[in-house]
């Protein structure tokens, strides 16, 4: 039973706790570049997740045979193989999307999320855990790209996923679909996310202090609080 819980954790930690965009600040280039609309963001995140899952699986399977000195080069070759598959499939099946995403599909090779997970997780854990970790990180990436893409599309062209949401009377802010809008939106989103996290942390801390006081525990030092994880 306990094992199952920990396996689930491998997946869920990627959603927010170590969210690639907001917490690890990795994979910034595609995040900023393709989120002109929500659909582009989703396509990019799915392509990245595919590469992430399969390269994590393969790297964790062969991790015992790769000499330490050439591991990065080997990881890159494995990743590049899957990126080529995605690139060719997209070119053949989704011509429009492939054009919209431009060089950013081949650039998944150098997306730091994938190499980061390979180095930090897949090279040290078994295949099942690595795949779950990759899926979690991919899902976290998908969430951030979808939210960012939706906000930019909503304000920049009045719609979400191509359906018009705001009335015609709303004058679209062109800046939101220009490069500058990407930087501004992501910067503000990150700032507010940090603010939210900090507020939650403070609340938890205060409630714990109150709890200790009720229990009649006098000495509430920094160490005690740190031990409780707040």
């Amino acid at each position, binding site marked *: 039973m306990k094992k199952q819980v920990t396996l689930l954790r491998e997946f869920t930690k990627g959603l927010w706790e170590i969210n690639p965009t907001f917490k690890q*600040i990795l994979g*910034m*280039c*595609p995040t900023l570049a393709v989120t002109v609309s929500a659909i582009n963001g989703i396509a990019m995140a799915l392509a990245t997740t595919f590469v992430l899952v399969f390269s994590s699986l393969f790297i964790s399977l062969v991790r015992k045979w790769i000499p330490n000195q050439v591991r990065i080069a080997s990881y890159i070759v494995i990743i*590049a193989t899957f990126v080529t598959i995605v690139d060719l499939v997209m070119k053949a099946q989704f011509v429009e999307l492939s054009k919209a995403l431009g060089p950013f599909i081949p650039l998944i090779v150098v997306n730091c999320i994938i*190499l980061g997970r390979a180095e930090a997780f897949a090279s040290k854990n078994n295949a099942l855990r690595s795949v779950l970790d990759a899926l979690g990180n991919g899902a976290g990436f998908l969430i951030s790209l979808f939210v960012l893409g939706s906000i930019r599309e909503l304000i920049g062209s009045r719609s979400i996923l191509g359906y018009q949401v705001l009335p015609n009377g709303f004058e679209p802010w062109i800046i939101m679909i220009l490069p500058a809008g990407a*930087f501004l939106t992501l910067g503000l989103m990150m700032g507010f996310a940090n*603010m939210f996290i900090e507020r939650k942390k403070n609340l938890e801390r205060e409630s714990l202090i109150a709890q200790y006081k009720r229990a009649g525990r006098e000495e509430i030092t920094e160490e005690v609080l740190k031990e409780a994880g707040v």
Partner: protein
Amino acid sequence: MELLIIFISAALVNNFVLSYFLGICPFIGVSNKTSSAISMGMATTFVMVLTAIVSWLLFNLVLVPYRLEFLQIPSFILVIAALVQFVEMVIKKVSQPLYRALGIFLPLITTNCAILGLALLASMRSYDFMQSVIFGFGAGAGFTLALVIMAGIREELDLADVPKPFKGAPITLIVAGILALAFMGFAGMI
């Protein structure tokens, strides 16, 4: 004349960092101090020009004649990794001061998406040899420019009273947004 347009376009109008979003990681990571920004920019420009030359040769003399275009991504990334390693070794041998200035930044460049992006864009637009080299140089110059401006702003920003949740990456992104707005002013040049 056409070469000049390619240079200006890569350096200013379609700046790699501020309008193509290539090389954001070093842009956020290394833009703390002006001195390291200049070193990073120089190292990147150097590798970019070399990459433009080598990737053009590889693509047009090896991959196209043998109909191996589908190997573009793995071959480019391997060539870039080997090139960076080679450059690092040569610099270490030839000039110690230069190695000390650029040394720590060189390994970082391998995973800089601006380098691979440059090689891919140049082959996508089917530039000829001279155009590729100028494109590489312009992109490097634009990257350096953006990095140095950003480092200058961030040095001032350290003294400013930024709200705590916005410190670090968020404020850097917002400043980059304003900088991107300013760079839009170059759009009329070509």
